[in-house]
């Protein structure tokens, strides 16, 4: 018989507590008064540009004996044609699958030898290499990072394997309702824009060849198109020397142009539906095009989103989950792309309550546009966002992501230095104006993955025209 609490008794004996003072029940009626929050800022950055155009940024962080790096190239999946969907992802992943000097296994081994890992992938706007190392191995880490970016060999066998596995991964993802809902949602939201494509298709995967991978690499992975971010226990002079040594004698052309700005051409709200046999929930995504972070209304919109569905005490969670019990998770967010951004609400609800859930969600979207948030909601949203910002700087990863985001999205250099001040300045009127401009339920895309005619009939009540069926590729 295993006596679980026995271990606690042993613990108590090992601890050597002083005799505690006699305890009196404190005044529990109100929460304690506290000191104001200490200000916390993104630490200083050093930025320099190599003669070949590569931009490097260092944040010295001595808290841990570790260095974290990001090497990003502008133009990710949005830099390829829709017919080639998946090519940017394949090229990115293949960077770590062989160089002139090493096999994929040797690359993985080398990364672990320096106490790290090396991952590659593509987002809509970038090809991204991420790695970290014990600081004493910063030299080896940067050497490997440069090697995979500069001299990938794209072995034919690895390209074939990546193509086959990408097809298998796509099959696997198609089992997931969230994946299917996202594919359909972005397809409809972004129409013919490159941001409409978030997943490959069977046909586009079949087209991936070594030649296509090599030519995309030549086009995107060049020093002029690169941003290198280093965060960690690394002095500036050493960082400069290492970066010059590993990346200095690399040349290449300019990268692609940024994707075009997305001209929103709003349609009345339309519901799209994908039948998923056997589904016990309706997976719902609702959203519309919003604004970039450098738009004057952005901070108002950020707060509006926060009040609406940005955290546990937000309106959507409190009502749809905590009062009505329709869902386990619901939230809203702003998703930033380089030349556009989206506002969206996402939730899975059990099929029977899809209709009242949608009614309630649209009710909240209307309300955030109709009246200012209460003073309490406004304060809470602002402090929560400021606190989240401080907490995101806890880790080297968190710092590296913020620094890279500022550069990739061409935001003002002081964007995160003034972040908290600008948040604090947001008024209820700002929130209302931003919500009225950028939260647009009457023009939203409503994408639902689920099962049954009853569900489809419910959706019709929220659509300006008959519900549009979509397939698993979002067409």
């Amino acid at each position: 018989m295993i006596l679980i609490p026995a271990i606690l008794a042993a613990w108590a004996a090992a601890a050597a507590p002083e005799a505690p003072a006699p305890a009196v029940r404190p005044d529990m009626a109100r929460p304690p008064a506290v000191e104001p929050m200490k200000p916390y800022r993104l630490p200083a950055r050093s930025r320099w540009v190599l003669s070949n155009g590569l931009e490097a940024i260092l944040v010295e962080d001595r808290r841990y004996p570790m260095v974290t790096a990001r090497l990003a190239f502008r133009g990710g999946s949005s830099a390829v044609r829709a017919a080639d969907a998946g090519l940017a992802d394949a090229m990115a992943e293949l960077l770590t699958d062989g160089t002139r000097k090493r096999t994929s296994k040797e690359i993985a081994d080398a990364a672990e030898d320096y106490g790290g890992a090396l991952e590659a992938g593509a987002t809509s706007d970038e090809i991204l290499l991420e790695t970290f190392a014990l600081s004493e191995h910063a030299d080896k880490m940067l050497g490997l990072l440069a090697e995979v970016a500069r001299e990938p060999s794209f072995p034919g066998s690895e390209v074939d394997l990546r193509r086959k596995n990408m097809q298998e991964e796509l099959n696997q993802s198609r089992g997931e309702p969230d994946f299917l809902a996202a594919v359909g949602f972005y397809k409809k939201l972004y129409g013919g824009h490159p941001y409409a494509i978030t997943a490959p298709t069977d046909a586009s995967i079949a087209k991936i060849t070594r030649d296509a991978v090599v030519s995309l690499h030549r086009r995107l992975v060049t020093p002029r198109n690169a941003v290198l971010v280093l965060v960690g226990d690394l002095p500036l002079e050493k960082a400069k020397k290492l970066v010059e040594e590993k990346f200095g004698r690399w040349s290449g052309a300019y990268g692609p142009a940024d994707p075009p700005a997305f001209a929103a051409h709003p349609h009345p709200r339309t519901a799209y539906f994908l039948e998923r046999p056997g589904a016990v929930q309706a997976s719902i995504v609702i959203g519309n095009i919003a604004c970039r972070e450098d738009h004057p209304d952005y901070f108002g919109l950020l707060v509006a989103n926060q009040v609406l569905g940005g955290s546990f005490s937000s309106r959507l969670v409190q009502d749809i989950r905590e009062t009505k019990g329709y869902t386990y998770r619901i939230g809203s967010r702003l998703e930033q792309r380089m030349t556009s951004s989206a506002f969206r609400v996402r939730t899975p609800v059990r099929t029977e309550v899809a209709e009242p859930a949608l009614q309630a969600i649209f009710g909240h979207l209307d309300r955030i546009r109709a009246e200012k948030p209460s003073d309490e909601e406004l304060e809470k949203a602002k402090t929560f966002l400021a606190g989240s910002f401080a907490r995101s700087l806890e880790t080297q990863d968190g710092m590296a992501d913020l620094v890279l985001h500022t550069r990739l999205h061409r935001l003002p250099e002081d964007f995160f230095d003034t972040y908290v001040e600008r948040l604090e300045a947001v008024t209820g009127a700002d929130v209302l104006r931003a919500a009225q401009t950028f939260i647009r339920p009457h023009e939203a895309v409503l994408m639902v993955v689920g099962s049954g005619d009853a569900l489809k009939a419910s959706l019709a009540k929220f659509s300006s025209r008959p519900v549009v069926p979509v397939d698993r590729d979002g067409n």
Partner: protein
Amino acid sequence: MTGALALLAAWAAAAPAFEQFSLRNGMKVIIAPDHSAPVAVVATIFNIGSRQEQRGRSGFAHLFEHMMFEGSEHAPKGTFDRLLERFGGDNNASTHDDFTLYWEAVPANAVPVALWLDADRLSALKVDGDAIKNQIEVVKEEKRVSVDNEPYGKLLYLEISSHTFVNWQNAHATIGSFEDLDAATLADVRSFFDANYAPSNAIMAIVGDVDPEQARAWVERYFGWIENRAKPVSVDVTEPAPTGRKRVAVSDPHANLPALAITWKGLPDRGTPDHYALAVLGRALFKGKTARLYQDLVKNTEAAVSVDGGLGFPSDSDEYRVPAPFGAFVIYKDDQAPRRIEDRIYAQIREIAARGLSERELTRLKTKLKSDWILDQQHTVRRAERILYAALLDGDPSKAWSIEPFLAVTSADLKRVAARYLTPDASTVFELKAGEGK
């Protein structure tokens, strides 16, 4: 010891000190100051997990975790999150096989607010029938989203434990059954609280930018007066020794690719050399692109799409405690036979049992183990969790700063545990057929 490991050992030795003490009511407290960022975490672990639930009450530990957010005497429903967010904080909780863990991450100035909220719910939790009904629905939605509607969800969260284990305490799912959840009454919830949420059944960690003396004064003020109650009656979680290979066929209408899982039970106690060796073996077989099974199944034979597993699987290996299993989980390609996947897994285990790992591989594995540990140290919540796991599961919070037992594992240890524990006779094999019923 190589240079890298020596350097790390020196760094770890210089890691911040902590202090520990007990309150009069038996609650244990650990304070670990760290002033590198003006944030702090207050985390509490209760020695009650789903394994300690009673028959007919499956899912109660988890349902109760939800109830802890449903209001207390001075902080009615909704206040907990609202107040923490008002100070810029975040919070969450999770229910595991052996414990339930709550945390609040706050800007350091708000630590007393987190303590006040925790103390109020520990001393005067106030829930009503409506809140219970509402949270039963929310938990059922949680089950739908992560188990019923998700590929491989049923295998990972229900079937692995129900077929691996014989003792109901271990075999039932943490999420519980809809019948048991529906049967929950206000009286049940109250008696669950009285039985399991005594201060002496809890350990608290305060980690981050706090002055230890000040933090201790706060804890004594808000928790010192709470009366202790009897500790829960211990539950027998003993699992009979495995009696030969068991095969289980399952189907998953949502999965588009077949999968094979194997669990092994009859494993050593936490804190023994064999425990540390099995944890390292799990990493050697499954973790990352250098792992033996990733290389064999995904790269060399191209038979699989993904591999996962290790000690404690499907839970994390750092929360390992007997009778948790060692597990393997492979999603493979349609044209492969499940027996071939199973054979490949055993071929890799036999290989390590016969030859161990090369010096180079072992050093690499340990370097990575240490750097992963440093990565964890960067997250205050993760750091608090590690301290509480060490305090509860090892009975010694200082174990959170010590990875020496893992670094002491030798190739001979790996050979021994691979041969001794990962045998077909101790296994349950799950063959998951994809897409049935579509």
